[in-house]
């Protein structure tokens, strides 16, 4: 009898435990089990409404009934029928002396309340007089293991330029820095030929990344030469040997060498080294290499044995920007003339001769001549084809337009322009969109 009573007590205890656990262990509602992420839907709806700045305009024109009616129509049209909303715009105050930070300005809704569960997102909008600042992507920053590449601008004070009539190398260097430095992780001005010698020997000037850099020669048809490279074999064949070395270094460091105008490597320049020689046109501090310079450079980049062979260039006359370049003019906001005169275009035959690939045509090819293109040297390593060294040559007539230099490089690397998030003190308003679901739980 006693055992039966005990069992009955156990039953009562277990029943009590079950009832208690059932009471406290409340299962979620079906909508909690599989919820619609109303917060994200709200945020993306605000972004969509502001894609044409309509939300911003309405937020700063709260008295304009038409704007707000249109906003409500757009909001209602874009949300699913079972979603109810409340959109409120707040003015952002400068919180001083305990004053309210946000003040409600205008509100629209399609329901008296938003049910038992809702979610909201806020979006800061700015008035139309806020400055818009695009943010360029740094070239190479997404490359594997790379935090961006370096731009070297040859701004050597002990060198002269040729075919840069109306400018000097230093003024061009400054303009190029202004145009291109936003797109590069580091921009380094190479101030002397000695500094050029330093980087040619593989030593960075200021801790920058040497490998994969872009080197722009602002001296036109002349190329600065460090005094350390004045002897043999660099002085061979009127310093074509030095041009050969440059080609080898471009290959070794995977540089992209940029010639802004004319026949590349036609002269070498160092005002101390060539203080008593001139380029045959009366410009001292310069020595004429002539046509072998370009050929030697290309032999160097292709790791071919050095020869004293000459190069050729063509004169196709008026040439037009390629479609790709015209498109990128709009993208980067650089607008040189779409047609130029080319008198030093490189032959297309160099592609096969030196294992080059034209990765970007800045100008349309004319009868076998490339007025302006970015070439990449193609190599095969372990069965994989890749680029090792690059050369951007603009074979145009003087005077140079450095916008074309910038455009070609940007066309080739194609860094993105990110739209900035715009914030401005005292000109921002906060739009809060709260969403709920109609129907049962």
């Amino acid at each position, binding site marked *: 009898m006693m055992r*039966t009573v005990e069992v009955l007590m156990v039953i009562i205890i*277990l029943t009590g435990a079950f009832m208690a656990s059932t009471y406290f262990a409340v299962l979620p509602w079906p909508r909690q089990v*599989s919820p619609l*992420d109303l917060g994200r839907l709200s945020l993306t709806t605000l972004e*969509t409404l502001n894609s*044409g700045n309509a939300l911003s305009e309405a937020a700063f024109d709260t008295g304009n009934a038409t704007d707000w009616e249109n906003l409500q*129509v757009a909001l209602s*049209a874009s949300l699913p029928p079972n979603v109810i909303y409340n959109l409120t715009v707040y003015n952002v105050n400068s919180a001083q002396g305990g004053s309210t930070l946000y003040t409600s300005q205008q509100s629209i809704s399609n329901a008296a309340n938003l049910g038992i569960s809702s979610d909201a997102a806020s979006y800061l909008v700015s008035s139309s007089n806020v400055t818009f600042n695009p943010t360029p992507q740094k070239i190479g920053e997404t490359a594997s293991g790379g935090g961006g590449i370096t731009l070297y601008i040859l701004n050597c004070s002990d060198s002269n330029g040729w075919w840069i009539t109306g400018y000097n190398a230093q003024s061009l260097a400054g303009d190029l820095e202004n145009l291109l430095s936003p797109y590069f992780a580091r921009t380094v001005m190479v101030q002397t030929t000695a500094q050029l010698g330093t980087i040619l020997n593989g030593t960075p000037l200021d801790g920058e990344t040497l490998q994969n850099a872009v080197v722009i020669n602002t001296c036109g048809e002349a190329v600065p030469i460090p005094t350390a490279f004045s002897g043999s074999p660099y002085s061979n064949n009127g310093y074509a040997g030095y041009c050969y070395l440059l080609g080898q270094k471009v290959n070794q460091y995977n540089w992209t060498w940029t010639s802004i105008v004319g026949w590349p490597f036609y002269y070498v320049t160092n005002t101390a080294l060539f203080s008593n020689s001139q380029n045959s046109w009366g410009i001292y501090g310069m020595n004429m290499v002539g046509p072998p310079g370009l050929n030697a450079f290309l032999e160097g980049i292709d790791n071919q044995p050095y020869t004293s062979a000459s190069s050729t260039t063509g004169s196709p006359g008026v040439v037009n920007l390629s479609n790709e370049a015209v498109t990128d003019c709009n993208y980067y906001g650089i607008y040189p003339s779409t047609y130029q005169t080319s008198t030093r275009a490189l032959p297309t035959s160099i592609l096969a001769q030196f294992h080059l690939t034209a990765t970007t045509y800045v100008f349309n090819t004319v009868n076998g001549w490339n007025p302006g293109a970015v070439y990449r040297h193609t190599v095969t390593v372990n069965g994989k084809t890749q680029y090792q060294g690059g050369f951007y040559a603009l074979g145009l007539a003087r005077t140079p337009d450095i916008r074309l230099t910038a455009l070609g490089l940007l066309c080739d690397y194609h860094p993105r322009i990110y739209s900035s998030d715009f914030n401005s003190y005292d000109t921002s308003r906060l739009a809060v969109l709260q969403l709920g679901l109609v129907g049962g739980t």
Partner: protein
Amino acid sequence: MVSIIIFLAAILLFIGLFTNTINTAIVYEQHQGTATRCSDLLDSMLLNPGSPSSWGQSDVAPSSFGVQDPEFTEYQLSAFSLMRLAASTGDLVEYDKTSNTLYTSVTNGAGAVLLTPNAQALNYSTALQLLGINGTYGFQLSLTPDVTVTVKQADSNPPLGFSVSATGAGFPFAGASISYCLIIVTLGQTQAQYPSYKILNGTALANQQGAASIVFPTVTQPNPIYAFIAYTHLDGIVGVGYTASAPTTDPTVVPIAQDMKTDSVALANSYDLNNSGSAGYPLKYNVTFVISTQDYQLSELSLGSASSPGLVGTVTSGVSNPVPTISLPASAPGILIVTYQQSATLGGVVMMPWGMSSLAFPVNFGGDPSRQSWVATDLRQVMIGDVAYQAKLSLWSTKPIGVTGL
């Protein structure tokens, strides 16, 4: 003895009761996990351009999956990445005159078709692997325009007129601005002439029901050959609708996006599709490419030399006859419009969106959620080009749901 039996019976009863509650809770927990994963995956797809980021404009297989436009940082999707997704719906079409021979055909209303190379499409199983959910989840990604724009030719013809109706997901698009474009075709009357076209742009305003009537008093010929495109826009929400006259020829010209890498489009004679007709039927064509400007007017874009905004030629059925191909701009979404004629009185017009959003084509990519026992869904508002879409991800677990042994 009795007490032991009662005790055991009570234990068994309570085990059953608790098991039911616990089982339900565990299933709920699993469903909630699926829902959370659904939201995460949707953001992962929409806020990531994939790798390489330009995979939508090439023929390479991506190493990670995402459809965000690489030029943007928010919910702006690439119209070209979406073109490379193997459509859940759509027929396979065989065309043996190009290096790719199988194409997925997607249509969305009268007068427009999109055929993309099946070999270059990213299929569902690959996407599952790239997302890291192969064997655990299945999904369907649907992109539907926020605004449905229906265009119908008015009965009172001539003059040519159209009724335009714009409806949002939950509300008529009342008071929306409508920018429209009529491409009216004139057939060549001599052997040397090709079909020509004239573009008429205009604007109108939708009424409170989101509808508008548009009449072209100058187009009075009976049975005109035309294509009509309407953009409705209000406060950042843009919808696109279109229609075209039914072709009066058989065969017709069908544009085919034959290679996503080179952006080339082949103009096929419909008799060559699925080898459905005889050889030797020529059609003269005239091609133009239009893009939408900031004020939603359509503007022609040169495909050839500066002096020729359109390209003309002849496409003849038969394997031995050449395939005309044209190259489209690599990164400019627009609409390819092909007018064609068989004779001085028989012709037609067909459109092809270059980028999914140009003609507000919907996208359905992935498996079939209707056959699943439990499907979690989530929504986002996204932009593709200028067009507002609703992105919906349906996600389900491919593993059995429940608690084994209970």
